[in-house]
């Protein structure tokens, strides 16, 4: 050890400044887009049209022709489904995370249910609810439920036993135990479950638009795909990506605000 030269023995973790990082975050996609642009410029493959063609279709379709008629309804469904699914996931997770017997009773049925491909259930849901927006929202909500549910259960179960003891000692009521101790303690995990739910909601939003009247980002993209309008399909994919990115950004901002205590306490020790 002592033989180590003085320059070597001190570990220096190179620090990159914040502006540089943001620069990189912008530069990477720009570089990829440029690469895509030039690599596809001469493309004659009907499935991989030149990016210029995609951009043109993007502008024609989405700016802002179908914005109100298709983008907003899709996002409305997404939001409604995600909120319902997420809220139910947290509520159900809180119950199953608290009562072991409830968990034992329902967890297997839930696990069973989760492995069922939605295609099989579509006719039943349609016969119960029709094929309007309710069905779409319901399917999104169901899909969004599970990641949050599981994360909430896991989060509640990983609460430091010490905190459980504290709430017993001070005889916190059931409500306080739940809302003042266990849920806040589990909140980082719930947030990460919600994030997965958000992603799943997106996916199901598109799948749900395979049914019923053909409006929405997903329906248009799928239709373009089925009728070989590949530039339109790519434009749809690009839009989905952009909207997804923006949605996630909003989610992250809200989460970091709500969990400020957590983010700050975690970042502390990792300074440098």
């Amino acid at each position, binding site marked *: 050890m002592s033989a180590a030269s003085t320059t070597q023995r001190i570990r220096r973790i190179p620090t990159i400044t914040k502006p540089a990082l943001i620069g990189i975050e912008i530069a990477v996609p720009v570089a990829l887009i440029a690469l895509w642009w030039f690599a596809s410029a001469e493309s004659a493959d009907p499935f991989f049209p030149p990016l210029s063609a995609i951009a043109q279709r993007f502008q024609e379709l989405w700016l802002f022709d179908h914005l109100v008629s298709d983008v907003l309804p899709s996002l409305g469904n997404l939001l409604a489904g995600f909120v319902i699914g997420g809220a139910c996931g947290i509520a159900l997770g809180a119950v199953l995370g608290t009562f072991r017997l409830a968990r034992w009773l329902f967890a297997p049925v839930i696990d069973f249910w989760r492995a069922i491909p939605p295609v099989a259930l579509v006719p039943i849901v349609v016969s119960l609810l029709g094929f309007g927006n309710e069905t779409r929202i319901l399917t999104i909500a169901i899909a969004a439920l599970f990641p949050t549910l599981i994360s909430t259960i896991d989060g509640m179960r990983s609460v*430091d036993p*010490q*905190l459980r*003891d*504290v709430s*017993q*000692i*001070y*005889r*916190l*009521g059931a409500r*306080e135990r739940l809302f*003042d*101790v266990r849920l*806040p*303690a589990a*909140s980082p995990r719930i947030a990460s479950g919600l994030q997965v739910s958000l992603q799943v909601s997106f996916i199901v939003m598109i799948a749900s638009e395979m049914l019923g009247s053909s409006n929405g980002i997903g329906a248009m993209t799928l239709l373009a795909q089925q009728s070989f309008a590949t530039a339109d399909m790519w434009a749809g994919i690009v839009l989905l990506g952009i909207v997804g990115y923006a949605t996630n950004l909003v989610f992250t901002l809200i989460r970091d605000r709500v969990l400020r*205590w*957590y983010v*700050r*306490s975690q970042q*502390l020790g990792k300074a440098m």
Partner: protein
Amino acid sequence: MTSQNTPASDAGVQPRLSVRGLGKSYGSGPSTTRIIEDLTFDVAAGEIVCIVGPSGVGKTTLLKCLTGLQPVSSGAAYIDGVPIQGPPEEMALVFQEYTRSLMPWLTVRKNVALPLKHLRLSARERDERVDEAITAVGLEHAVDSFPWELSGGMQQRVAIARSLAYRPEVLVMDEPFASVDAQTRFELEDLCLRIRDRFSMTIVVVTHDIDEAVYLSDRVVVLGSRPAVVTEVLDVDLPSPRDQIATRALPAFATMRSEILSHIREGKIPTATIRTQQKRRRRGR
């Protein structure tokens, strides 16, 4: 098991807390480890009792049984003659692992106020209690900080303030002053004596500081051996009110001190016994 007589039968006056033949094991089946063999002692109302004993003997375990956080394996602990089966309303515990017993998402003030929520106090009384407790431990300047922004000793004092604000009838503390400096420690010890008088609290403290045990308490329970038994219960006959300088200067203080030390030594677990008694099965993998 045979020593299980109800506490009331013991003496004319009923003790506040009483421990009768209490035994405790962790684990189940072949991996059971006996931690506490058979403890019997009483704590009268308004008394301060200190529990001392070597590290790992089972003091924390005893407190957990006493506060109903852990079920006992044999015997029982009683509060006012009623067997303790879950945390009794009138009791509070300051945990040894203070860092982990604070809610990281609450500020100091909110941490202290947390147990008061369900007491149906008026907002004014609640604020008053919280402020008073926080001032008593000297943390007025940090009320809006989060626990992870505090030093170890400050966190420990938040945990103490939380239990003070709750104003339990029986206060149980597990090495509550381990991380504070000597000066603050003196102040907190005196605070303990003061609140005992003011609210006629019954206080049980686990400590490693023999001086502290003598200074604070009316009785000292020395635990030893493994599994734990009561090595000795010593009455502390020092005049009240106590004073950090005067009391500690008394010859009786020094006598008490060395007597306890010798009892601890005598109860100390010889390493050889430990080895055979605690042959741990491998687990995990």
